[in-house]
C-alpha cells in the first residue's frame, strides 16, 4: 500500500489529504475518515448474499497503516462506522482495536449507526451528534450552511467523472472542497460512488492507488 499525500490549507489549518480515503489534521494529531461501514459484508452474508470478509480485513489493514504512518492520537469517524446490526464483524473490529490502546476514538453518529451506546462504550468510542473544534464542525451529512463555519462531513460517497479527448471517461473517488466545507470519500472499498450532486464551486481532489491530484 502506497500513501500519497496532498497538503491543503483550510481556514488557516494545515490538512493532509491522502489517496487512502482519510485526511490528517496536524494540529490535533487526528486522522479523520467517514463511511467505513464495518459489518456490511457480514450483514450481506446474514441475508444470504455471500460476500467474502477479506474486504473488511483490507479496510482495517489500510486503516492500521494510516494510523502508524501519521502516528495519529485521535481517530474521528464522521459517521457510518457500522453498517447495520451487531454481527461478527464487530468482534473482528474489537480485536483489531486492541493494538491501539492509546488511540482516542470519536464517532459522529451517521444514519447507519444504530448500535447501542453500551456497545460503543464497550469499544471505548465516544459518540456525538456533531463535534466542534475551532475552526471546524464535524458532522455526518453535508449541509448547505451560510454561517461562517467550516464543516467536514461524509455520507455521500463522492466521486467524480472525468472526460478526456477521444470520448474517454474515468470515474474516481474524490474529496470535495468548497469555501466552507469538505466532504470525505467513503473509507470502505465495498461502497459505490456518487458522481452526482457535486456542491457548487467545489474543487475535487481525486485519487488512485498511487496518486492524488486536484481537478
Amino acid at each position, binding site marked *: 500500500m502506497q500513501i500519497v499525500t496532498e497538503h491543503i490549507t483550510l481556514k488557516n489549518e494545515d490538512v493532509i489529504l491522502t489517496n487512502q480515503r482519510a485526511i490528517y489534521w496536524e494540529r490535533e494529531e487526528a486522522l479523520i475518515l467517514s463511511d467505513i461501514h464495518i459489518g456490511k459484508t457480514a450483514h*450481506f452474508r446474514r*441475508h444470504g448474499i455471500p460476500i467474502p470478509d477479506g474486504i473488511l480485513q483490507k479496510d482495517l489493514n489500510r486503516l492500521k497503516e494510516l494510523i502508524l504512518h501519521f502516528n495519529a492520537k485521535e481517530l474521528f469517524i464522521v459517521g457510518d462506522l457500522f453498517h447495520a446490526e451487531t454481527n461478527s464483524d464487530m468482534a473482528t473490529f474489537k480485536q483489531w482495536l486492541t493494538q491501539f490502546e492509546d488511540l482516542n476514538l470519536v464517532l459522529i453518529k451517521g444514519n447507519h449507526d444504530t448500535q447501542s451506546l453500551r456497545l460503543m462504550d464497550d469499544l471505548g468510542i465516544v459518540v456525538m451528534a456533531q463535534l466542534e473544534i475551532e475552526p471546524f464542525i464535524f458532522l455526518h451529512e453535508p449541509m448547505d450552511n451560510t454561517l461562517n463555519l467550516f464543516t467536514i462531513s461524509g455520507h455521500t460517497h463522492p466521486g467524480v467523472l472525468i472526460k478526456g479527448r477521444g470520448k474517454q471517461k474515468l470515474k474516481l473517488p474524490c474529496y470535495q472542497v468548497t469555501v466552507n466545507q469538505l466532504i470525505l470519500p467513503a473509507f470502505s472499498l465495498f*461502497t459505490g460512488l456518487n458522481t452526482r450532486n457535486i456542491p457548487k464551486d467545489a474543487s475535487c481532489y481525486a485519487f488512485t492507488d498511487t496518486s492524488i491530484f486536484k481537478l
Partner: protein
Amino acid sequence: MNFRDSEGLRIINNWMAEKGIAPFPFQLQTWQRYANGYSGMVVAPTGFGKTFSVFLGVVIDYLNHPEKYPKGLKLLWISPLRSLAKDLAKAMTEAVDDIGLDWTVQVRNGDTPTAVRRKQERMMPDVLLTTPETMHLLFSQKKNSRWFKGVRCVAIDEWHELIGNKRGVLTELAISQLRYYSPKLRIWGITATIGNLEDAKHVLLPYSDLNITQITAKQRKKLDIISVLPDEIEVLPWAGHLGAKMVDKILPIIASNTTTLIFTNTRGQAELWYQLLLNAQPDLAGLLAIHHGSIDKKLRNWIEDNIASGYLKAVVCTSSLDLGVDFKPVDCVIQIGSVKGVARFMQRAGRSGHSPFERSKIYFIPTHSLELVEVSALKEAIKNKQVESRDPMVLTFDVLVQFMVTLAVGEGFDSEKLFARIKEIHAFQYITKDEWQWCIQFITKGGKTLNSYEEFHKVILDEDGLYKVKSRRISMLHRMNIGAIVSEVNMMVKYISGGYIGMIEEFFISKLKPGDSFILAGRILELVQIKDMTALVRRSKAKKAVSPSWLGGRLPLTSHLSHYLRLKLSDALQPGRLEKELRFLNPLISRQDEHSHIPKSDEFLVEMIETKDGHHLFMYPFEGRLVHEVFSALMAYRISKLKQITFTIAMNDYGFELLSDQPIPVDANNIEALLRKENLMDDVVASINASEMASRKFRDIAVIAGLVVQSQPGTRKNNKSLQSSSGLIFRVLEDYEPDNLLLRQAYTEVFNQQLEEARLQQAFERISKSKVILKHAKSFTPLSFPLKVDSLRGTMSNEKLDKRIQRIKEQAFKIE
C-alpha cells in the same frame, strides 16, 4: 375405442360446426396424438388456432376418459406473456361453457390479486394459465406438490420466445419439477417456425420415456412487404432515428386502412413518433394510442380492448404488441426502422390480416438511409425462407442456484435425487458432480471462501436429509427475486395529484432536474420531485421535451440478416432492376464510394479519420453488433500490443469504431497482420479478459443468482442496507474468489452468446481471403457516421491509470 368415433371428438366437432368452422388437419392430428398418449411440439403460425390444438386435445381426452383425471388441476398452460393469458382464458372458458363442461379456467401471474391467489391455493382450477416465473413462485410455497400431483398435461405456448434465453431454462426446470410431482405428465410445446425446430423439440422434451411427436401446420401466411421511400434521398439522415418527414407518408396509410399497428424498436422512438403523428394531424387525438411495456397496465388493457373493438385507428407500439391477442380489425402493420431479424419481422407482419385466409401487409419506413439496404436484405431472406435459429442456453448456474433455493424455500430437496433430475434437463446435461457440489456449497456456505462464516445460513441441511431455507427473511427476499428477466432499475412515474402513468429507467430520470420536462405515455410531463423510487410529476406546458431513452430493448442484428446485408451492399453500386430500395439509395452509395469505398463481397473496408475528437479507426465486418463487440475488443487488444493506448469503442450492426486520443498505429503495412486468423482464439480470450464484456454479462447473473437485491419501484421498503452493484461484486469476486462458477459463467456467456467461435473463425477466414482496403477519409463517410453518433460505448486500455489521467489533464479535461 377408435378415437375417430369417440364421443369426445364428436362433441368438439359439433361445437365447431355450430360456430361454422372445421378443424384444421394439424389440430385433428394433435388431438389424436394426444389421445394416444404422445407428448410433442406443434409448429404453427399465429392465427391458425394453435391454442385449440393442444387445449381441445386435453378436453377431448377428458370427455372420453373422465375417470383418468382426478379433481383439481389438469392442464397447466405456461406462456411467456402475461397479457396473453387473459384473452386465452376467455377463449377457453367460452369453449368449455359452450360444450357444457364444468371446468374452471383461471389465470395466475404477477397481476393476479392476492385474494384470488389465496383462493386458488385452497382450490386449484382445472386449467391454470401462468408464466414460467409464477411456476417457480408456486414451487417456493410450502406443500406445493399437492397442487400438481393430478396434472395430466403441461403446455408451453410460444416456446420460440422462451428457448433462446434464461426464461427457457426456467421453463425446462419447471417441467422437470412437474414431472417429479406427476410422473405421467404429457408435455406439449407450441411454437412458431424457427431455424432449429429439431433442437427446440429436443430441449423441451429430453426425456427418453416419452413418446414424442411433431405436428406441423401446412398453412402459410401470404405476406406483402412494401417499403416506403421518401421523395428524395436527402430527407433521410445517414444515422439516428429521425426521418420525421416520413410522417407525411404514414398518414395516408393510416387513413386508407381500418386499424394500423405502428411498430417502433424502442419505447423512446414510440413516444417520439406518437408526438410526430399527433402534431401532423391533430384530429387523430383519441383515435391514436401509444402502447409499450413502461405504460400503466390499466391503460394498456384499455388500448388492447379498443384495438379489438376497432375503435382505435392506429396504435404506436413496441415489441409489447409482438405477440398476443388476435386483433381482428388490424389490417395493416407499419414497421418504423430496422427490425433486426427475419423472424421478428414476419411475426410483426403477421399481426395484420389475422384470420388464416387473409394476406398480411407490412409497410417498412426507413429512418436512416442504410436501413433501405436492410429491407432489401430482409426481402431476400424471406424469399429464401431463411429464419433465424434460437439457440438454447446451457449451464446457466445463476438460474440453477436460484432454482435450488426456490425448492429449499418450498418443500426442500434431496441433493442426490435433485442432481439426477437436473442432469436430465437439456441445459444441464453436461453439469459435473464438482459443479453440482459447488452449487450446494454456494447456497449453504456461500462459496469456497466462506467456509468459516457463522452468519451465512441461507440454505441448511435439515435433520430429515433435505436442504431447506429456515429464515423467513431469506425466504421473503428470495421470493421477490425469482425470475430471469433483469430489467434496468425502474422508477414509477406518478402525478403529484395522484394517478400512475408508467415506469421509467432510473438512469434516465437521474439526469433530469426538477422542472425539466420529458415525455411518457404520449404526455409531456414536468418532474417535480423524486421520492421513494417514485418520480412525481405534473402536466407540463412545455411544447417540447426530451423523450426518454431506455437502455434495454436495443436489439442486435441477427447473423442471418447480416449475411444478406453484406451481399446487398456490395450489389448496391449496380442495383438490380427490381430492387427499388437499392436503386433509390444509389446516390448515397456513390458518395460513400467517392469519399472512401464500397466493399465488394471479396473486400474488407477499413477507414481512418482524424477529427477534433481524436483518431478514429473504422472496420465494417457486417456481422451484427454482438459479434462486433468481440471483434472490436480483439482489434483493440492487438493494436495495444504495438503501443500503450486507450480506446473507446462503439459498434453497430455494420461495423465498429476504435477511437483514441492518440494516433492509432495502423497502416497499410500492418493491417493484414492485425486481421490475421492465426492465434485468433487465444487473442480473443485475452481481449475478453481485458475488456468490460464479462462484467456487463455479470449484471444479470448477479441478480438472478441473488447476489444483488433489486430495489422494487414504488415501495418504501427497498432493502437499502443490502444495496450494492453488480460491478462492485464482480470486482470483489475477481479479487477473492476467481474460480467462482458465476464469475466463470459471465465469461462463458460472452463466448457462447456473442461470439460463436465458428462464426468468428469464418469471418476471419473470409477476411483473410479478402482484399483489405484501407482508406483515409477527410470527414465522416455514410458508413462511419452512424457509429460516430452512437452513444453506447465501451473502453479498453492497457495504459497505467495515472498516465491516462496525466494526459487527460494536459488535454484540459472536463469534469462532471
